[in-house]
């Protein structure tokens, strides 16, 4: 009896991990496999399981709306990542100057991260409201002819998503860079100061280059947020006007749950997975390897 008990006891870690690992295998890898499989079938309203080659991918890449989604993703991520990084670096450097009340300021910069994108979208939708928002403010301030209708203008609506997303996430970039700045070896800074390097030189030549891991991880995190962005688009523009602010995530949702074209939806989801994997897998690989050394 004791030997059986001991044997179970010895295997206990594996017995605990196995079901959790099985959950992950089923709900992550099993589901991914199912979606990939469906993307190679004729599935429409209901899933069918006879293979049909690349037809769904042909249809996806022949859909103008998909190109709108990709173009928007490109514009959005480019601007969102670069502006958030620029603000993040600037604020982190400024906060690193022994600022009194640093804690309070940091709290203010970062609180939007605690909010749901739906809340952020709701408030920015109101601020950017074509009739009553910024437009009204400027007109009352004396600029009678001022118009600001980006929210309902198909050419500019995607930039309103950038505005709201930067507001929400730039504090996050600041926090990551500030943590990076605080980890720079002080001796190097002192030595540079003794050599007569000016503040600007110290930052551009010494501090920022030494932060390249922080740059990398911040870019990856923001890119990851950008590819997954769904909530903010829905709350702010609903993907509109028309489908002018569609992104891959909203495209997939619309085709899966509104238009019931499961095959195309699955194909677009697979494209998203491939994009994210191309960024995340090498990153995770290097992070995990680095940790083991």
């Amino acid at each position, binding site marked *: 009896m004791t030997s059986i008990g001991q044997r179970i006891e010895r295997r206990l870690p594996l017995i605990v991990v196995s079901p959790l690992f099985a959950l992950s295998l089923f709900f992550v890898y099993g589901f991914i496999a199912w979606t990939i499989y469906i993307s190679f079938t004729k599935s429409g309203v209901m899933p069918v399981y006879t293979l049909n080659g690349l037809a769904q991918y042909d249809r996806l890449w022949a859909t103008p709306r998909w190109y709108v989604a990709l173009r928007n993703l490109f514009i959005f991520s480019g601007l969102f990542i670069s502006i958030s990084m620029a603000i993040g670096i600037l604020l982190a450097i400024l906060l690193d100057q022994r600022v009194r009340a640093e804690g309070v300021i940091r709290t203010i910069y970062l609180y939007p991260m605690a909010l749901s994108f739906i809340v952020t979208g709701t408030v920015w939708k109101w601020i950017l409201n074509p009739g009553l928002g910024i437009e009204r403010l400027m007109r009352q301030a004396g600029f009678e002819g001022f118009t600001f209708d980006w929210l309902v203008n198909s050419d500019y609506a995607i930039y309103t998503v950038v505005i709201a997303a930067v507001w929400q996430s730039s504090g996050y970039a600041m926090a990551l860079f500030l943590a990076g700045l605080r980890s720079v070896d002080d001796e190097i800074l002192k030595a540079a100061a003794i050599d007569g390097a000016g503040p600007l030189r110290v930052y551009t030549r010494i501090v920022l280059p030494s932060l390249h891991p922080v740059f990398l991880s911040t870019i990856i995190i923001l890119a990851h947020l950008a590819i997954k962005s769904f909530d903010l688009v829905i*709350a702010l523009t609903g993907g509109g006007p028309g489908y002018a602010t569609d992104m891959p995530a909203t495209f997939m949702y619309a085709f899966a749950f509104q238009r019931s074209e499961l095959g195309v939806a699955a194909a677009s989801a697979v494209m998203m997975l491939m994009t994210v994997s191309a960024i995340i897998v090498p990153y995770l690989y290097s992070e995990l390897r680095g940790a083991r050394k």
Partner: protein
Amino acid sequence: MSRHPTGGIVRGGGPGTVALRVVLFAVLGVFCLYYLVPLFVMISTSVKSLEEIRNGTFLSWPRAITFDAWDKAWSGACVGVRCDGLQPYVWNSVMMAVPAVFLSTTLGALNGYALTKWRFRGADIIFALILFGAFIPFQVILLPMARTLGVMGLAGTVPGLILVHTVYGLAFTTLFFRNFFIGVSDGIVQAAKVDGAGFFGIFFRIVLPMSLPAIVVTVIWQFTQIWNDFLFGVSFTVGDSNPVTVALNNVVNTSTGVKEYNVDMAAAIIAGLPTLFVYVVAGAYFVRGLSAGAIKG
């Protein structure tokens, strides 16, 4: 975060330094405004009457403060055809978030503990495979999940959402606890093993009590994620079982009737208040969660 003693680059006396510091504080102040204005707009709009909103601007100070919009957002606003305000949906979110946070945190703690303190063959590979689940775009699992929930009879229910959040939260919670337990000395666990303590004995009596910081970080992270979730809520629930984020979006985007911006803003604050409260009370832990999501290993 320890400060380095020189503390940045602007130092020493002289008029140049003073001018620099004035600029420094001006820029920091402008950005404070940038982040705070939307919060001010939310609060001030929510206590204005519709008439005042139509006549003023979104930045104007409220003249006659009224809480009618709050009242309506809480218990009278229409979400679809039902006009009970956000109240029932706030409860849905609570009923969803509390069990999901508890389950995903507990299982993540067990997972992280087993993977670091009882290292067995393949532990690293298992961890890497679980971790990848934290980064997949969830669009890739939406369709099979919807069907699975249907088969299990959980489609459109709060328990269904609990399952979804627990399963997909597990990757993050495992990551947090694994990173924490790696820093815990193996010696303590080894000593307890020699004394004859078992897997669960060590977990409950030794490891768990010392992982309070990791538990706090994980609970805060999971609560924020689950409360703020919209994608799972909108994909897997209908009408009465919607979480508050979905209900808020429905309130704001109903096209019928007069647009009540004050009710929208009050509803947005109600939906955002729980996570905002957690952030203000436990901001340091929230930030730690954020950076743990960034720097792994």
